[in-house]
């Protein structure tokens, strides 16, 4: 049974996580003014239809507001933390060009993202064992080449505590 809607791929987690525009922490509000008719707004309409879900998914704390048919020309407006406002004219631009432009002006650069990724990796040590939430693996028995879990394969007699205690007692 196929998914419902016009382009249901927009409603998949894989598509949403493919968004590459991550705003800087100073961007608080994004406002999109576009028109529902007219060729000049075509790029803006495609941007709202395809790219806004990706952007909101990646930036959950940015307020995004959409205004339809308020002004003849389509534009984007960003409100930053220091009171500054950035106006982006998107008349006659394709949605790809719009995303590239805002990524360049207000998106976090690749170096910043990599640095943040490294900081996050530093917090967790990959060689420790524990609950799945905090560690990669839960027990040594999960690793290939190590002693398998006694729940599935019984341990050989020599490794069992019962046998070892009996041997000690005998000696």
């Amino acid at each position, binding site marked *: 049974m196929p998914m419902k809607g016009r382009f249901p791929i927009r409603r998949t987690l894989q598509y949403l996580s493919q968004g590459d525009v991550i705003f800087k922490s100073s961007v608080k509000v994004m406002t999109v003014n576009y028109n529902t008719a007219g060729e000049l707004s075509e790029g803006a309409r495609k941007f709202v239809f395809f790219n806004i879900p990706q952007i909101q998914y990646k930036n959950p704390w940015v307020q*995004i507001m959409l205004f339809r048919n308020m002004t*003849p020309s389509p534009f984007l407006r960003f409100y930053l933390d220091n009171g500054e406002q950035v106006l982006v004219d998107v*008349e006659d631009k394709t949605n790809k060009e719009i995303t590239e432009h805002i990524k360049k002006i207000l998106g976090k650069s690749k170096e910043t993202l990599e640095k943040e990724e490294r900081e996050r990796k530093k917090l967790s040590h990959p060689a420790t064992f524990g609950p799945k939430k905090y560690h990669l693996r839960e027990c040594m028995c999960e690793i290939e080449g190590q002693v398998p879990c006694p729940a599935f394969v019984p341990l050989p007699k020599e490794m069992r505590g019962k046998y070892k205690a009996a041997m000690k007692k005998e000696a």
Partner: protein
Amino acid sequence: MSVRRGTVHAKWIVGKVIGTKMQKTAKVRVTRLVLDPYLLKFFNKRKTYFAHDPLQQCVVGDIVLLKALPERRSKHVKHELAEIVFKVGKVIDPITGKPCAGTRFLENLSDSENLTEADTTYLSEKLQELKVCSTDN
């Protein structure tokens, strides 16, 4: 049980004014896009904020930008009016600066009466460039 919280979560918000019956206070509705966990679609979720408007210049239907106050003014008022983005009925297109209504401008954009000689020659040159020449096959 009144906990004096230090700072507000939302520093800058944009919303629509829905009520001005209170003195020097505007009731603003703010919509945010929230992802539905099953449908994986974004829906508008609304929340009302009260904003301090000392000059009472807001009318119902204005789109306003609110700024968080450093400390709470009263039990519910935590924001103040920073600027009116779009005034209802008097929307100004920020790209051209002209008043507009819906998808059309209210005043005549072209001022062909005030064009100088240099302007007309420049414009006619540009028009020549844009003319599509048909290739003879």
